[in-house]
């Protein structure tokens, strides 16, 4: 067994185990957060404006960071507090250990802080015999269980009530065994209440800190952060330098967005806006019968420990810089189909979890930590809409994947050399290289079909494909068609309308051209019937396949080739119509990063999703009478494509179907789980199937006469896992 193959098997086994042990709890919780987010933001009329505002504040803050650190230092020191900027974890811990030693503290109580997890301050203090108590109930459960958080906001999201009850009953042996959430919560509250009373130091994180007033914002629901800051006389706050924003007024969009984006609550129970040292009297349980003393606030001590730990370098890194805008709300995790099914113990690095974790881990712990889980981001892009500061999280994942590829030494294997004429260096592993070069495979596939289905037959055997390339043998391979869409179009008689309303280039994406040719033919027929002049020229692939593998150089050369091929058509004012949503998403999204701005804009602005285009034609007066209407049962179950949804284009398909008299039920699964090459990969096959099964059950529950899917991946996934045989919407409405 090759080492690659062995590590794929190990990864598959780990994912299988986590799906079995933690998957149900994680899925129930993340899906409920995600659903809550949709509902909560729909009640917020200024949602988009607030996101823009939040984004602008973060951009400005990171731009001005060195200056803001100094302003904040002056502000805090003027109030009698201390500021320490720690270069790394060890530096931070050394400082905190000194503060705790100077206070002669035996116990430190903490409210939840991911940054404190990053620097592992608990371990550092425990090594000095300090008792560290996590007061957030979820964190405390993990401390008792000796486990790591699996989610940025709800650290114990992977644990069920039953699991927690079992843990508490075993560890604490209460007189009456605990069972309900109410009993468990009250037990924890009492237990922690005692531990809080005799702590000398309270440690918190900070969601934001304002440079103008030294005010820190803490977002909680339990009230533990309030107790942590008010009971002990010494307060240590640990925060990444990126948490600084210029002014108190800047907090507003974040107060309004963070709860909605994360757990789907309009606002959490408590948003503390603390300007330490706080004015509240110390609650000194060592003197339980002495009234609280208004003057005791004067004795409060406050230490703000700002953590660099790689952040100032991230600020200079064009690909990682955006990560610093992250407010750690967890929306990217909750909206991610992979995360929903496997959780942060697989989809996470040393500290951070979810889509944005790749940026954090690469920045603070290094690329190796990011490499552990980075491939779990399939680039479905659902997190892009969910992120309250509009971070292009899929791009960060691709950029880091590219670096990981380049970081490896490797030589091109003789077996793949001919199949993978890409632009990327030898370090790219064989699996990624194979999928990154799907265009070559597709061409070869069509050339040899149907006499022999090359991939399955004269190509390497399935066992070899699994061992060498990690292509799972349980997955059906694409059936390439002998006659491509381009060939078909070239040889058919000219059917262009006499007086066309528009000129269209139908982009022959790889899948439509070589595999799902029928949907391409249906698109041609539909457009022509609606009065459009159509051409289907041979064009290069979009670069989506290599991009998903982190092969940016190859993707860029494909993008350049597409730009060259599209240029003459754009000069003639032809519209580019695209069937495969993942390619349209390239044209309108990633091309901005791969091509000169003007070129990318020209392609993006002139390209349309096929049903979006049909919708536009009908709105502009085309006759919908030429299209196919329901013959009998009009019920439709429709799963739009993840990237199509992110582009805001699901609605157009639904509108066209409605108009023609179909009754459409849409799925709410964020992604089909297939995601291009992901579902073929042996280490992820079972995860992909787990996700796809949920989608299939949902579509089947709609009990419709026809299932529609817009993407190639969704079509393959639903077709192979479900009872239905999905087609593209264009095939349904095309003139027969």
């Amino acid at each position, binding site marked *: 067994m090759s080492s690659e193959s062995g590590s794929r098997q190990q990864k598959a086994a780990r994912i299988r185990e986590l799906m079995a042990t933690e998957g149900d709890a994680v899925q129930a919780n993340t899906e409920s957060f995600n659903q809550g987010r949709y509902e909560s933001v729909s009640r917020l009329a200024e949602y988009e404006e607030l996101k823009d505002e939040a984004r602008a504040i973060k951009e400005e803050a990171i731009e001005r960071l060195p200056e803001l650190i100094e302003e904040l230092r002056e502000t805090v020191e003027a109030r009698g507090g201390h500021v320490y900027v720690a270069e790394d974890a060890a530096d931070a811990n050394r400082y905190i250990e000194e503060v705790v030693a100077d206070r002669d503290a035996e116990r430190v109580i903490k409210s939840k802080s991911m940054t404190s997890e990053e620097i592992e301050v608990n371990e550092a203090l425990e090594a000095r015999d300090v008792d560290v108590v996590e007061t957030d*109930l979820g964190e405390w459960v993990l401390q008792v269980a000796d486990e790591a958080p699996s989610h940025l906001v709800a650290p114990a999201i992977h644990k069920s009530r039953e699991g927690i009850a079992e843990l508490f009953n075993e560890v604490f042996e209460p007189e009456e065994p605990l069972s309900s959430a109410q009993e468990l*919560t*009250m037990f924890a509250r009492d237990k922690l209440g005692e531990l809080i009373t005799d702590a000398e130091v309270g440690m918190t994180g900070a969601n934001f800190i304002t440079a103008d007033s030294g005010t820190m914002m803490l977002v909680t629901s339990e009230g533990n952060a309030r107790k942590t800051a008010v009971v002990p006389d010494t307060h240590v706050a640990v925060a990444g330098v990126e948490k600084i924003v210029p002014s*108190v*007024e800047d907090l507003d969009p974040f107060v309004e967005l963070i709860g909605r984006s994360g757990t789907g609550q309009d606002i959490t129970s408590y948003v*503390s806006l603390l300007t*330490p040292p706080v004015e509240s009297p110390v609650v000194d349980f060592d003197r*339980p019968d002495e009234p*609280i003393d208004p003057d005791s606030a004067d004795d409060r001590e406050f230490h703000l420990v700002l953590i660099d730990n790689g952040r100032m370098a991230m600020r200079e890194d064009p690909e990682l810089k955006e990560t610093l805008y992250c407010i750690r709300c967890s929306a990217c995790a909750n909206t991610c189909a992979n995360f929903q099914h496997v959780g942060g113990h697989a989809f996470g690095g040393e500290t951070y979890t979810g889509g944005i974790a790749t940026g954090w881990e690469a920045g603070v712990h290094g690329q190796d930590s990011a490499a552990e889980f980075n491939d779990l981001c399939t680039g479905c892009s659902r997190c892009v809409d969910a992120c309250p500061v509009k971070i292009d999280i899929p791009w960060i994942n691709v950029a880091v994947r590219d670096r990981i590829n380049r970081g490896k030494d490797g030589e091109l294997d003789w077996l793949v050399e001919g199949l993978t004429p890409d632009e990327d260096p030898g370090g790219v592993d064989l699996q990624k290289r194979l999928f990154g070069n799907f265009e070559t495979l597709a061409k070869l596939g069509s050339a040899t079909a149907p006499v022999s289905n090359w991939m399955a037959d004269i190509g390497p055997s399935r066992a070899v494909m699994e061992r060498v390339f990690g292509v799972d043998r349980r997955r059906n391979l694409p059936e390439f068609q002998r006659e491509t869409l381009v060939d078909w179009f070239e040889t058919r008689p000219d059917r262009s309308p006499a007086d066309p309303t528009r000129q269209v280039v139908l982009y022959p994406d790889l899948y439509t051209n070589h595999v799902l040719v029928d949907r391409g033919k249906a698109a041609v027929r539909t457009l022509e019937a609606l009065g459009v002049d159509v051409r289907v020229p041979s064009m290069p692939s979009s670069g989506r396949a290599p991009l998903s593998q982190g092969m940016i150089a190859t993707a860029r050369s494909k993008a350049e080739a597409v730009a060259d091929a599209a240029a003459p058509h754009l000069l003639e004012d032809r519209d580019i119509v695209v069937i495969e949503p993942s390619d349209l998403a390239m044209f309108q999204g990633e091309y901005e990063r791969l091509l000169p701005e003007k070129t990318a804009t020209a392609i993006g602005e002139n390209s349309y999703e096929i049903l979006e285009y049909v919708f536009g034609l009908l709105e502009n007066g085309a006759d919908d009478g030429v299209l196919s209407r329901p013959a009998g049962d009009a019920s439709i179950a429709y799963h739009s494509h993840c990237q199509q949804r992110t582009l805001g284009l699901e609605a157009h398909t639904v509108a066209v179907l409605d108009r023609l008299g179909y009754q459409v039920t849409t799925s709410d699964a964020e992604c089909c789980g297939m995601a291009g090459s992901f579902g073929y990969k042996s280490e992820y096959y079972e995860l992909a199937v787990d996700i796809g099964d949920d989608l299939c059950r949902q579509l089947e529950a709609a009990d419709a006469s026809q299932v529609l899917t817009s993407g190639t991946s969704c079509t393959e996934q639903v077709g192979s896992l479900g009872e239905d045989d999905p087609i593209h919407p264009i095939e349904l409405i095309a003139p027969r």
Partner: protein
Amino acid sequence: MWPRPEIDSSEGIDVSDSASQTSPIERFCTRSQTVGVDVTRVSRADVSSTLADLCDREPSVVGAPLPWTDVSLPDSATTMPTPAELEAASTGITAAVSGIADYGSILLRSTADGVEPVSLFPDRHVAVLHEADVVPDMATAIGEQGEAFREEGASMIVATGPSATADMGELVTGAHGPKEVHVVLFGGEDR
């Protein structure tokens, strides 16, 4: 370029309780209910007796002095309580500096006489709020306090409903903070 065909995406936005529909006071009351807070609206003259009634059967009451004339804590309320009294108290009474209509939130300022511990330790928090201090939205609430944060080093809590946790498998109200929150809203006649 062909104008991109647009679909009105604002269709799904629910603005039924937005600013144009109802007054901030009404919205504050409605939103408070939604987040699990009871609101009692009274005239200034009745605040003291309302508070007394609310604490009638309470075994132990703590409070932070209220800043309005003719508005006072019940006789049973202990101000400047000891830590032991704080822990044992069933109700804590404090003033709120503002109410935020969009969210049903109240803004509590941490004061030297203990608004923070008094509103945090007891099982029930009773907040007294003047109608003139109810603002329509979060931006106004924070904006109004900008100078207090900058010039006075103020600390405040935006509190919305009782304390809660879902960490034990389902939502439970009453984690480290109060299980119940009651707002006494007064002063409509002053406006």
